């Protein structure tokens, strides 16, 4: 296989990291909704931590983006 083609395929595979980030985000917001609906009075208290977790989970998907960039341009 040509190197150029292999690089493209590798970068595409690196985008699979988004799947994990998607599962994580779905899990996070699903649990948040569940917690919020079960105890609506605590909803305002529960608002900050999901946002922090959102940023942390999103970062794991973006590490895949970084790898794709390294493969393509590194």
């Amino acid at each position: 296989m040509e190197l150029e083609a292999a690089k493209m395929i590798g970068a595409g595979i690196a985008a699979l990291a988004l799947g994990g980030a998607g599962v994580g985000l779905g899990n996070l917001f699903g649990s948040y909704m569940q917690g919020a609906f079960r105890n609506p009075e605590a909803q305002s208290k529960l608002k900050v931590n999901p946002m922090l977790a959102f940023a942390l989970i999103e970062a794991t998907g973006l590490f895949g983006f970084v790898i794709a960039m390294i493969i393509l341009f590194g």
Partner: protein
Amino acid sequence: MAEAHSPLAQFEIKTLADLHLGGIDASFTNASLIMVVVVALVTLFIVAGMRNATIVPGRFQGMVEFFYEFIANLLKENTGSAGKQFFPLIFSLFMFILGANLIGLFGAITVTSHIIVTFALAFMVITIVTIVGFARHGAHYLSYFAPAGAPMWLMPLMIPLEIISYLIRPISLSVRLFANMVAGHVMLGVLGTFVVGLGGLFFALGAIPLVAIPMIFALEVLVALLQAYVFAILTCIYLNDAIHLAH
């Protein structure tokens, strides 16, 4: 690497004033200019807001106090009263990253989308945390790498793992901020080319990415705030580990 119309062209560093110190290229670039602007804006924001300080704050002073209290509470919740002396560090880190992220969204080059900038910040944080740990606990700080309560036969596995996770912190801290900023800006750039490409194909088609851009932009403003917050809170957590040797 980045061509004129590639979505990566926006991160290109241009030299504004040549400066070579002993073979090291220390030129003043557009990124350095924006960093100076960010520091100047943050300083101006705080100094101007607190110039006519009153007991009942006005709108401007209220904004400054909001950021102050936000970081003060963050520090108190995560490190307790022992972390109070690190308030200037966390506050200036938060304000600098927030300013750089936001100014990057409004046209200027995003300095936090350069790994060297974020890595320098993260490396500084980890160096300070390590110094604080050794200054507080002396050689006892090394027990951080051997978690108490773990069985003795696990130690050959636990100690290398703890050391690796300690050393990987500056990398994960810097790559998190860097990747978020780059990905967001690349996405906006790609959507921008979609507008032109699809609009050239059929006029109304260009409207779809055009509508998406403000939404993604709003998401990016949220991400800019969140990443500054995450950087600050993780710095607090690392400081807490060094101050209160839990195990």
